[in-house]
């Protein structure tokens, strides 16, 4: 596969969330509002890309018996560095994301891509695969975050957009249920449904 394809494939037909069904947990936690969802998406993309690159460089020296532990050490080191850098240079954002940054370590997409791709492929394709999957994850996070913030609190990026449309005056109310974690899963489920009904390739018999 060409590098460009490696980057683009995970956006749609091989999306880590809607097709590989990885990283669902963080999809649920950070998507009540758009802004933390975007910062989380960016952090995950950086970590997936770098972890893929580093593991791919090390792949021929890693003893198979301890490969998961080696992957975990690399991923957690990267995540802690991202967290420290955010705290030093993007203090506001780091306060908002708080514990979620640390939870990137347990994001299945990161280790999933390491096991499935970086362990058997050279560095440049691995880097592309990491970036691609990071973006694929980001797309889903942004869609879910937008839906939940807009329908749940009538805002986008913290700006009360629904207020300006005058919908409240004719009896419209925000759906508080949208802010609850289960609604994230339902929105992701709807996304998967929409994608599979459009794309016959993805349908299982």
């Amino acid at each position, binding site marked *: 596969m060409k590098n460009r394809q490696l980057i683009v494939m995970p956006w749609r037909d091989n999306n880590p969330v809607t097709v590989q069904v990885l990283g669902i947990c963080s999809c649920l936690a950070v998507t*009540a509002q758009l802004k933390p969802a975007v910062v989380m998406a960016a952090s995950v993309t950086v970590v997936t890309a770098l972890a893929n690159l580093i593991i791919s460089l090390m792949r021929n020296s890693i*003893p198979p*018996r*301890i490969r998961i*532990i080696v992957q975990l050490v690399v991923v957690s080191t990267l995540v802690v560095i991202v967290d*420290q850098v955010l*705290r030093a*240079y993007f*203090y506001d954002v780091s306060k908002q994301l*708080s514990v979620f940054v640390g939870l990137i370590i347990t994001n299945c997409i990161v280790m999933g891509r390491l096991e499935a791709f970086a362990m058997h492929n050279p560095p440049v394709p691995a880097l592309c695969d990491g970036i691609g999957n990071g973006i694929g994850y980001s797309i889903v996070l942004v869609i879910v975050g937008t839906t939940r913030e807009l329908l749940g609190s009538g805002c986008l990026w913290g700006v009360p957009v629904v207020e300006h449309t005058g919908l409240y005056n004719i009896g419209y109310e925000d759906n508080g249920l949208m802010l609850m974690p289960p609604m994230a899963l339902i929105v992701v489920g709807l996304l998967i449904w929409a994608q599979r009904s459009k794309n016959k390739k993805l349908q299982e018999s």
Partner: protein
Amino acid sequence: MKSYSNRYVLIYSAVLLGAAALLLSVVAVTLRPRQQHNEDVGRKQMILRAAGIVSTAESAETLYAENISETSLGEGLPAYRYGDKHIIALHGKGLWGPIWGYMCFDKEWNVCGAVFDHKGETPGLGGNIATDEFASRFIGKSCVDSTGFVPIALKKRASKESRHEVDAISGGTMTSNGVSEMLRECLEPYKTAMTKQYR
């Protein structure tokens, strides 16, 4: 598949862990002063916000030095002074972790400003305690009357007339309870200073 000796595996893990530890220590030590500075500026910005002074990360230190002084309202009762107003620090427990804030009181000990923040409350639910809208619900409230100390409590459908009740956050009941508890615990020690006006 290539097989590796135990000795290789052990040395490999030791080297990897050593390298990771070294890297993390270097990062932590180099970034520490910047992080501490950020935390300090963040705290000063919160105190300024409680006092109703708008500040940016750059202007916070100068504004703080010009307006705020540290004082005490009795043994072990620190406070900040802004003109004839007092600002009191609050610390408590939310649903997932610590919550904290500052509350500004005028001469008659009516709340004239408040600000809250949290470590890990759910964004969009309990996390809303950090919004200006939530903080503004406290303005004009009071935690003393002629009978003594009456804590400000967060309630569902709080009575508009009551000076001791504030609307809780919908979907954030546990966090709201934490805020009520924090207001009671952190403000009660100051009741002697606050009730002086009724004696």
